[in-house]
């Protein structure tokens, strides 16, 4: 499981304040803490309060990569903000994210190719988030066809089925899980799959329990990556144990430790 940490996001007040004050230490401590906890990549988002997102993205990328060398997932709704991040980044990058709208997708794929980046593509378009599995598959196929037409490797695409909160769209979650499995059959090489995990428990109580239960089920459906909070120890422990049960790692008595040690750089 490729763990993308969600914590460096201007939506969090602590991060927003650090971005505003250009307090590198706060961001760097956060980055190191996420990586030590098992993050394979860090999502980087300036947040809605940022007045100069292009400059802030550049500062965040420089600040983070001076202490950790993991890939960065550059998260913005504005392409110019993402491109600034891509220009600054020294290590592998993931663009987060494009929708399935062809016009938008073509621009994102062109940028991803230019900077040798992976791309998260959401199975939603102007009409909104799909209500069922078939529509998700249709949009996923549209995304992959666009990648193939533009000579972009399909295994560098991370398809996101869009996980809706359980208290909003309870009926859709089993469809979402099935979509994760079915996405893999749409292209060769198979695309990767990713979810923004915390969304599943948005507005609910027992958030951590809901998150980790959904994660286990998604892993069983072949999920490749998740954007999540690696500091949630219970969540990371079930993630590691699910990997073990799926034979992704060789068992040993200290298997939690072993997973973390194998990740340590």
């Amino acid at each position, binding site marked *: 499981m490729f763990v993308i940490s969600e914590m460096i996001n201007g939506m969090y007040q602590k991060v927003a304040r650090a971005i505003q004050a250009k307090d590198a230490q706060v961001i760097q401590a956060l980055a190191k803490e996420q990586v030590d906890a098992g993050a394979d990549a860090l999502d980087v988002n300036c947040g809605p309060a940022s007045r100069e997102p292009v400059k802030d993205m550049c500062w965040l990328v420089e600040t983070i990569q001076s202490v950790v060398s993991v890939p960065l997932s550059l998260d913005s709704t504005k392409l110019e903000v993402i491109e600034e991040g891509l220009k600054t980044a020294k290590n592998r990058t993931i663009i987060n994210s494009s929708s399935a709208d062809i016009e938008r997708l073509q621009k994102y794929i062109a940028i991803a190719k230019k900077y040798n980046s992976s791309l998260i593509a959401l199975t939603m378009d102007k009409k909104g988030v799909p209500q069922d599995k078939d529509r998700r598959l249709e949009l996923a196929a549209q995304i992959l066809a666009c990648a193939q037409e533009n000579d972009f490797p399909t295994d560098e695409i991370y398809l996101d089925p869009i996980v809706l909160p359980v208290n909003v769209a309870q009926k859709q979650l089993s469809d979402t899980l099935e979509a994760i499995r079915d996405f893999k059959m749409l292209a060769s090489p198979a695309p990767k799959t990713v979810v923004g995990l915390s969304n599943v428990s948005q507005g609910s109580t027992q958030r951590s329990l809901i998150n980790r239960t959904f994660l286990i089920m998604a892993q069983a459906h072949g999920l490749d990556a998740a954007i999540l909070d690696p500091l949630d120890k219970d969540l990371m422990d079930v993630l590691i144990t699910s990997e073990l049960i799926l034979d992704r790692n*060789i068992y040993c008595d*200290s298997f939690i430790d072993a997973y973390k040690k*194998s990740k340590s750089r």
Partner: protein
Amino acid sequence: MAEELKCIEKWSFRIRELQIGAGKEEGGTREITFKVGHQATLPYLFKEGEIPHRPIIAAEVFDSSVDDWPQSLSEEIGSVLKEPVDWAVKMVEELGADTVCLKLQGIHPDFGNRPAKDAVALVRSVLKKIKTPPIILGCGDQDKDNEILPLLSEATKGERLLFGDVVQDNYKTVTASCIADGHNIITESPIDVNIAKQLNILVSDLGMPLDRIVINPTIGALGYGLEYAYSIMERARLASLAGDKMLAMPFICFVGQESWRAKEAKASESDFPSGGDSRERGITWEVVTAMAMIHAGADILTMRHPKAIKIVKAAIDDLMKK
């Protein structure tokens, strides 16, 4: 060319590189040192990834008499069998071994119970007489090994030798000495990849760097579990190349010890007439076992028969021609 060679796997990780022996500039006295491991692919798939180092062969040398060896083996080594220092020199200088693996059987309470000072003196003499770094093995008795191996580690401090073996329920004492004195260590597990991984974690938790650990997966000779050992090694290698750092260490395989334990290798012609010439039979048993281990990913082989060593060394030369 065969079709399967076109299927090139992309691996994300490689085996750790380990150095045996330290030269003068590194704080030791060895004129010849070895590097093993660091493969970026499965054995000899040069098209898939880099394989920078060849496997090395360490000749097994004992500190006490080996009366139970079959004649076809002992007569080949000759009179030096009773003189471990001369035996070591002969194996390296005349009979083609890369280095020696000194087994201190004589310190075992049941096989001589020799005192520590004899073992220290022997190791010092071997170091003086050969240019290569010897591998040093205890006798398998935990108390005796915990008493004597730390003294040998200290006496050879800075030489970056390879000491063994440590096991899951007895690893702390010898590992701590090897960490302090800058040596490498062999972690032994009973043909069990789960225990191999666990022991490496335990040893690294004590502070042993991962690039100073060699895995002894425990093997069986041809006819005695060879395939099982092969599959365990293969599983560990596949996991390592996919990123499991706790198994990504070089392997040592005790080929000599296991092959010459097989009745097919040691039985005389009168006891086993259908087996043919006993000398050829024993050599073949050791060679076949060694070759299987090399293809499973062995980095260090310990061997006994000079002819078998010669054959396997030539085969390694051949395999390493890309």
